[in-house]
């Protein structure tokens, strides 16, 4: 391990560390533009110059490896001059239009020119101008501001796996472009906005809506998929202005998917802001007071025998409200509760059987990978990015059983049926991994499939003392948590026979269409979508940005959302609504505050006390050996941008569908009744 001196301070670093990284460890700041921790090092901006003793000229610290006995100076006069020079060159062709630039206030170029540049320009000649590029509905480009650091190109190539951008022409004519004016199509494209150190790539939906210093920042998590990406919600005056990623090496590193980032305008559209009750006379939904709505729900429930009442929790339901609803249903005496609203029959008896055991970061340890019935690109773009990263690092063999899909790494397609799973073998793999898409368990042979996957995991060595490579990839943020707290019924619920149906954030077509015509349907949720459309009573609730709630991601990691803004109108936090209803029913739930509810939850399920821990679950029995269907697996998500009520209300997501799926834009956005 080389020892070197930086500004007179001695440090010993791992071999392969760059001088810039070593300096960072010492807290010595080195300005940079092109260098980014997660990307390759092109060393083209020259901002990171440092003085190396006995070297004839300054060296680029990002690209030079720390060597034994190096003596580095970062604050000499020579370096200050060098930085000034680089800064000056960089600004020669930069428009200096900070007052009308959205990056202003959080711009590397602005900050570094303030810190290291001249306070005036000596450049008299005309500046060059570069034509802006149209690269889709998400990213706004002002290419004259580009400093050609090539981070965006490297991001596309290395992380997203879609090489759409390139550096064209040369010298003064050089520009970033797609040439063929092609929209940058990647589920991760929004991250280019974050990594662009200047205002060349900015967010189109956010354009000119706020300045960074006016924003209130709330650190929370995302619920658009089961990854549970760590995000920061920026708000102004009670409105969500934008969503940015937060660094979490275990989950999302520093990326988020486009849905997470851009669907926030859906939080403001099509919202249920007051309770509605369907009028007995007109048959139409009419605005009501909370007390009226709750009374009519309570009346309907009281008038119905418990075994005719069912409750479903949907994709976005949080653990707190699911537990409250479960407690309420138990006190009513109804056994009909279900979170697997897509008809999924995965066996929830062993936790290791339905979570992503290795953890998302664990993918990087795997040395072979089998994907079963999943399209990670659509279902969990960040899991997909991890797979790609791993593939880039060690070219592990990847196979797929299921519908063939377009993935940013090569894979061997081994078939589409359950029978192909049994045939799978892998050679010389110390840490084999299987990723099973949760959607395959929506088939009637779910339990048998579960058992087959389990057997395969054992057969190929996924289960070792310090390695569990059996992973289930969920699509919905609400699912794992609800499975954890046992919001399931032993046998499928006969929805059509139910007289009262309680939909907690549940907008699944198959449930709603199965409801009896005369059934009394209660919809608790935040958007006027399918569920609200069918409902007899609507109880308006809070979205994930409006409540403090527990969610469990596909890894089984318990995380918490934090309230960034208040619920719209009269909407309330979900668990409170259920608590109020229980009081109305005369079966008051024994908790009066979120703390008391959390205490109730952790008492029964201890793992909810451990926030943000990737669990190590015991392996066990699950699934039931049985007959497997012969038909092939199908992927359910064909519109990445339209997977839940929030995205469906989002104009930005709609624009993406129009742009990226021009042919099949048939998904209708149903209006609230």
């Amino acid at each position: 391990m080389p020892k070197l001196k930086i500004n007179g301070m001695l440090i010993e670093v791992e071999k392969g560390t760059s001088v810039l990284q070593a300096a960072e460890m010492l807290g010595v700041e080195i300005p940079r533009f092109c260098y980014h921790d997660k990307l390759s090092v092109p060393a083209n901006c020259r901002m990171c110059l440092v003085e190396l003793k006995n070297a004839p000229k300054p060296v680029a610290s990002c690209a030079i490896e720390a060597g034994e006995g190096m003596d580095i100076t970062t604050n000499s006069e020579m370096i200050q001059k060098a930085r000034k020079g680089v800064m000056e060159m960089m600004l020669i062709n930069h428009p200096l239009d900070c007052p009308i630039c959205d990056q202003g206030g959080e711009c590397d170029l602005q900050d570094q020119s303030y810190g290291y540049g001249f306070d005036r320009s000596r450049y008299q000649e005309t500046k060059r101008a570069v034509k802006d590029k149209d690269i889709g509905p998400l990213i706004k480009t002002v290419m004259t501001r580009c400093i050609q650091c090539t981070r965006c190109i490297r991001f596309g190539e290395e992380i997203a796996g879609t090489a759409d951008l390139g550096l064209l022409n040369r010298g003064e004519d050089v520009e970033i472009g797609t040439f063929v004016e092609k929209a940058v199509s990647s589920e991760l494209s929004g991250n280019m906005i974050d990594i662009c150190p200047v205002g060349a790539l900015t967010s189109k939906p956010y354009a000119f809506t706020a300045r960074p210093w006016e924003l209130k920042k709330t650190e929370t998590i995302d619920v658009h998929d089961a990854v549970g990406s760590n995000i920061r919600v920026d708000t102004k005056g009670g409105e969500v202005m934008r969503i940015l990623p937060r660094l979490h090496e275990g989950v999302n590193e520093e990326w988020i998917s486009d849905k997470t980032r851009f669907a926030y305008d859906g939080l403001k559209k099509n919202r249920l802001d007051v309770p509605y009750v369907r009028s007995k006379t007109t048959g139409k939904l009419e605005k009501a007071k909370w007390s009226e709505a709750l009374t009519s729900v309570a009346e309907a429930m009281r008038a119905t025998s418990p075994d005719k009442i069912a409750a479903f929790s949907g994709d976005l339901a949080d653990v707190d409200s699911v537990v409250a609803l479960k407690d309420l249903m138990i006190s009513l005496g109804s056994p009909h509760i279900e979170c697997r609203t897509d008809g999924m029959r995965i066996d929830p008896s062993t936790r290791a059987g339905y979570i992503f055991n290795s953890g998302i970061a664990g993918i990087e340890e795997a040395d072979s990978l089998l994907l079963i019935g999943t399209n990670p690109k659509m279902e969990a773009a960040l899991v997909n990015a991890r797979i790609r990263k791993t593939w880039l690092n060690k070219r592990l063999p990847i196979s797929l059983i299921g519908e063939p899909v377009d993935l940013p790494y090569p894979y061997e397609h081994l078939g589409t049926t359950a029978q192909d799973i049994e045939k799978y073998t892998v050679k010389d793999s110390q840490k084999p991994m299987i990723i099973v898409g949760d959607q395959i368990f929506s088939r009637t042979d779910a339990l048998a499939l579960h058992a087959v996957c389990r057997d395969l995991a054992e057969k190929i060595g996924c289960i070792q003392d310090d390695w569990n490579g059996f992973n289930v990839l969920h699509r919905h943020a609400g699912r794992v948590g609800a499975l954890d707290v046992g919001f399931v019924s032993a046998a499928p619920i006969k929805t059509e026979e139910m007289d009262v149906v309680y939909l907690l954030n549940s907008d699944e077509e198959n449930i709603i269409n199965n409801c009896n015509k005369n059934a009394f349907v209660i919809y608790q949720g935040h958007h006027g979508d399918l569920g609200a459309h069918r409902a007899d009573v609507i109880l308006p609730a809070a979205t994930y940005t409006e409540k403090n709630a527990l969610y469990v991601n596909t890894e089984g990691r318990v995380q918490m959302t934090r309230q960034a803004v208040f619920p719209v109108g009269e909407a309330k936090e979900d668990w409170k609504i259920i608590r109020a209803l229980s009081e109305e029913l005369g079966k008051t739930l024994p908790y009066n505050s979120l703390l008391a509810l959390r205490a109730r939850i952790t008492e029964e399920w201890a793992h909810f006390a451990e926030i943000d821990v990737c669990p190590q679950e015991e392996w066990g029995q699950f699934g039931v050996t049985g007959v497997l269907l012969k038909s092939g697996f199908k992927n359910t998500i064909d519109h990445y941008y339209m997977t839940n009520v929030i995205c469906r209300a989002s104009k930005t997501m709609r624009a993406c569908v129009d742009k990226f799926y021009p042919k099949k834009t048939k998904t209708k956005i149903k209006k609230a009744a």
Partner: protein
Amino acid sequence: MKPKFEPNADYQPKDFSFKSQKKVKDILANYPSNQARSGIMPLLDLAQRQEGWISRVAMDCIAEAVGQPPIKVYEVATFYTMYNLAPVGKYLVQLCTTTPCWLCGSAAIIEAVETHLEIKVGESTKDGLFTLLEVECLGACVNAPMVQINDNYYEDLTAESIVSILTALAAGKKPSIGSQTKRVGSMALSGPTSLEKQAKKAGVGS
């Protein structure tokens, strides 16, 4: 300056294929299969030799041959100035006007060409035979002024000799290449000033 790459221009053809698949194979065989992208430059050259210039479809075709996204080929093609990214005449006349050539009278050469072909720098003749470009030093300053026409250099030009070269080319003849004044070994006009013995032995100079 050469015209820039305009991927959506009207002149872009709809399709392209290499006439000789064997040549493509031979080029790719020079590189290990996981380094096929190294073949981009020779393939661009092959395409240019076939068509005289490189169209967007040709680049897409090359991208496919080397298993890279098209943008990677565009990047390379637009970086190097010797690739023609827009149609050019049968003869690409690249006249050097950098300082040594200019000192030796390149301005008069340009003028002679412009009058003879009735085009300006950057234009092509109507019959599609000639395209005239002004370029920077081509490394033959010793025999300035000079011009490169397709793969050949013509040096020690005068207004008359360049016109006769162009006339000969237009007539389908092959004018002699290199020094038009029959200067040998790029020696000084007044005869050899060094290596005199060797010059004598070779029978040149005095």
